């Protein structure tokens, strides 16, 4: 017996059984909810966005400060290896042996200057050169030359220590791609990229990657009960957003004079000049972002695992010039304030999950706050406007090639 959902699905499919096309609503403040839950959309996003003409944040130099340090990560389903070689240079490779394509390194981080493939013992240095491949005379073709088999590399760029990659030769140069945002990144990091790694909080959200990216960082004053209960309200603030889908947020932070709910107020103490006490964040299309909140400096490296899973590494840093007391303060503050168990952010995950669970219901999600013209993309935004996400959604729509519904 055919159930109701199957009838609808069958009616939507064309004669070849292909997935129905996504038709974008005409109004600029509506999102079709099906883009968050359809596996075919996810596969198309990997191709067009994550492996397309975008730069993806994968690490910060401060995560591999010493010669021989390495980190492995993924963009979509593509494994990457990031090394600091014996000249101190940063390199990014596809994490695959140049011989038969075996994943070269499996640890998430460590220190080594040589990477050996377990299959045929091909040996690479941290510069990606093939330096050993056991063979007897006559084993390999006569013109075999080790220098033709280095580890393959994606394009990479470094901005204030932030390491980005792109898999597409047509992606614009990083300066053009991040136009207007390079100084904002420095602002989040506290001046420049001279950071010191403190560690990470990793979480897997059972939600689509766009749900995470769309809702992370913009909503603080609305969602977080902790802010209200602590009488901790934001001062003036503003957001920027551009046609590439990047956005930034800067807000003053007004701390309550008396914290009567907490016995240890160091959790929300700001060490530094009062005038410097602000929140700042930058989110880069498609998925990752960075925030400075009180004395925490964090980069949120995120990766889409599947249509309904997104892994986020909340990675925290101090400044290179910090003394041990400041480092201790940053660690104590970040550990308890942010991340999947943080006082002000634990409920983020719960909202992501509920958005995702209900994403299978029909219709559109609606953006209202800060929307002045429901057919136009806004250009100016207040502190907690939803509208600042709309330029990014228009960039998404165009990148995915989804047509707008005809009137």
């Amino acid at each position, binding site marked *: 017996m055919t159930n109701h959902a199957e009838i609808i699905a069958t009616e939507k499919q064309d004669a070849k059984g292909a997935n129905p096309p996504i038709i974008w609503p005409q109004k600029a403040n509506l999102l079709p909810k099906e883009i968050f839950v359809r596996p075919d959309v996810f596969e198309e996003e990997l191709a067009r966005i994550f492996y397309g003409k975008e730069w993806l944040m994968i690490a910060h130099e401060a995560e591999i400060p010493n010669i021989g340090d390495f980190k492995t990560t993924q963009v979509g389903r593509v494994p990457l290896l990031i090394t600091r070689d014996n000249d101190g240079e940063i390199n990014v490779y596809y994490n695959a042996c140049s011989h038969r394509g075996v994943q070269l390194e499996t640890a*998430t*981080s460590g220190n080594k200057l040589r990477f050996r493939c377990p299959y045929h013992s091909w040996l690479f240095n941290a510069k990606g050169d093939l330096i050993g491949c056991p063979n007897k005379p006559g084993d390999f073709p006569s013109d075999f030359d080790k220098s033709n088999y280095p580890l393959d590399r994606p394009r990479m760029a470094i901005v204030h220590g932030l390491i980005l990659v792109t898999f597409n030769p047509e992606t614009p140069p990083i300066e053009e791609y991040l136009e207007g945002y390079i100084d904002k990144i420095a602002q989040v990091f506290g001046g420049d990229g001279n950071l010191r*790694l*403190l*560690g*990470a*909080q*990793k*979480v*897997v*959200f*059972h939600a689509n990657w766009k749900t995470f990216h769309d809702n992370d960082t913009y909503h603080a004053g609305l*969602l977080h*009960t*902790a802010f209200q*209960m602590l009488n901790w309200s934001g001062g003036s603030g503003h957001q920027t957003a551009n046609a590439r889908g990047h956005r930034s947020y800067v807000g003053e932070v007004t701390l309550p004079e008396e914290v009567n*709910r*907490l*016995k*240890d107020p160091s*959790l929300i103490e700001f060490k530094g000049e009062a005038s410097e006490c602000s929140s700042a964040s930058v989110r880069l299309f498609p998925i990752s972002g960075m925030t400075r909140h009180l004395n925490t400096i964090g980069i949120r490296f995120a990766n889409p695992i599947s249509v309904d899973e997104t*892994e986020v590494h909340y990675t*925290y840093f101090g400044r290179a010039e910090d003394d041990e007391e400041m*480092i*201790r303060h940053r*660690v*104590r503050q*970040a*550990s*308890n304030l942010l*991340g*999947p*168990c943080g*006082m002000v952010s*634990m*409920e*983020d*995950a*719960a909202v992501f*999950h*509920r958005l995702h*669970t209900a994403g299978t219901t029909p219709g559109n999600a609606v953006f209202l706050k800060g929307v002045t013209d429901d057919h136009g993309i806004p250009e100016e935004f207040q502190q907690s406007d939803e509208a600042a996400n709309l330029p990014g959604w228009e960039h998404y729509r165009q990148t995915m090639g989804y047509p707008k519904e005809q009137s």
Partner: protein
Amino acid sequence: MKQICSDVLSKIDDLQTRYIAVIDAKDMEGWLSTFCQVAEASYVYTTAENLRANHAMALVMDDNYQRLQDRVTIVNKVWPGTYADYATRHFVQRTACRDMGAGKYEVESNFMVMTTPEETGRSTLFATGVYFDQVVVDKDQALFLSKKVVTDSSVVERFMAYPL
């Protein structure tokens, strides 16, 4: 190695079972009552990955008694209504105990926590790992001076509202 008398081990095991019973019951005052009421009492939750890399960052760092008290406030007063609730079921097994003198013992225990989110009603594994505890034992009872929770997984499933 110095033999630890069965009375001490019994008090330590009673403390561990009381601990898992109160957190499964979401009794945060009961949770607090398993710790010594001294300034340096602490509860830290981190991952084996952070520990291996010698990174100080943790998921929870209640490294003084005031922060333990604040944890009770956060769970009981700040967070209710903001998340989809879930039940936990803890299992604990002592694997080592060392006498540090002056009534203090270092105890290691394996633990496993199942979770049952209210919206699915399906139980899944939430975390496994090791409790590294400093326990103070007197003539009446045992209490935690410090509890360090180290999960095997480096990645938290969704979020965590109640202490592990």
